[in-house]
């Protein structure tokens, strides 16, 4: 199941370069559509890293969930809020970027120091290899059963919440009492929220 060492190293270097350059592109590119597609590339490269780590199931889940769902969702959001707008310049932007860059570099230095100086307990027990998927299934239905069920509830709540948040029209009558309601936005009170159904 394992591949030769030099091949593994070459794959790691290529995938790592793709991850780092792609994420820099996601953050720095001016066009948001390019960023979204680069994000898909980064997700694919991370899935490749998982394959290097002998985790085929999680790599498949990464491709399905991130590339297939999250990235497509982001592209849909870009499409829905696609308006050319000239961002107003704000004062002290360069200073702000420099300061946050300094903070991030400090965090990076701290993380590198931790990663290099901690005596990790390697090599650990022998890797399970191809049996990883079965082992994940055993975990999910024995000792991680409660988090597994909670995750399904969380997904249901997220689905309902996303529908409620993104829905366009509002109800004419209160669901509980049946009284007529017309909620107005705090931001734009002049805009009627109710859709006038009499004209259509």
């Amino acid at each position, binding site marked *: *199941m*394992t591949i030769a*060492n030099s091949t*593994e190293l070459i794959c790691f270097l290529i995938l*790592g370069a793709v*991850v780092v350059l792609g*994420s820099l592109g*996601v*953050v720095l590119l001016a066009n*948001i559509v390019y*960023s*979204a597609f680069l*994000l898909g590339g*980064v997700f694919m490269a991370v899935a490749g*890293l*998982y394959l290097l*780590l002998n*985790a085929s*199931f*999680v790599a498949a889940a*990464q491709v399905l*969930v*991130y590339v297939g*769902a999250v990235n497509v*969702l*982001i592209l*849909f959001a870009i499409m829905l*809020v696609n*308006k050319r*707008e000239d*961002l*107003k310049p*704000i004062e002290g932007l360069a200073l702000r*970027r420099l300061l*946050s860059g300094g*903070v*991030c*570099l400090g965090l*990076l230095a701290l993380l*590198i120091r931790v*990663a290099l100086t901690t005596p*990790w307990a390697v*090599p*650990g027990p022998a*890797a*399970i290899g191809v049996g*990883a998927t079965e*082992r*994940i299934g055993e975990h*999910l239905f024995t000792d*991680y059963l409660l988090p597994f069920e909670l995750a399904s509830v*969380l*997904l249901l709540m*997220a689905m309902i919440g*996303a529908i409620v948040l*993104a829905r*366009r029209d509002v109800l004419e009558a209160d669901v509980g009492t049946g009284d007529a309601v017309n909620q107005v936005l*705090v*931001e*734009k009170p002049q805009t009627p929220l109710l859709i006038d159904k009499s004209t259509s």
Partner: protein
Amino acid sequence: MPEPSSGLVPLQAFLLLAALLFCIGVWGLINSRNAVRVLMSIELMLNAVNINLMAFSSYIDGDLIRGQVFAVFVITVAAAEAAVGLAILLSLYRNRVTVDMERFNLLRW
């Protein structure tokens, strides 16, 4: 057959890559003015954490791969977060007709 834990790529290489990815994500989270890009940066950070979990699972916990189970949960939560985040973004856009983070300042004092 050489095991991956004794391979040429050490555990620290994965940790350094994940640290770099996380820091890029933090920088993007702070500095992006487009709200969609902020969500992308959050996804980058979640992926960095996942790389760490998978590396530890493979190198240190190779038998019981608990890190992979955690990575599956993180992927689940990330999917839920992306859906709700983008729904919030859509309803923000409906109110403010912009995606500029500098203009979402209703709660600022």
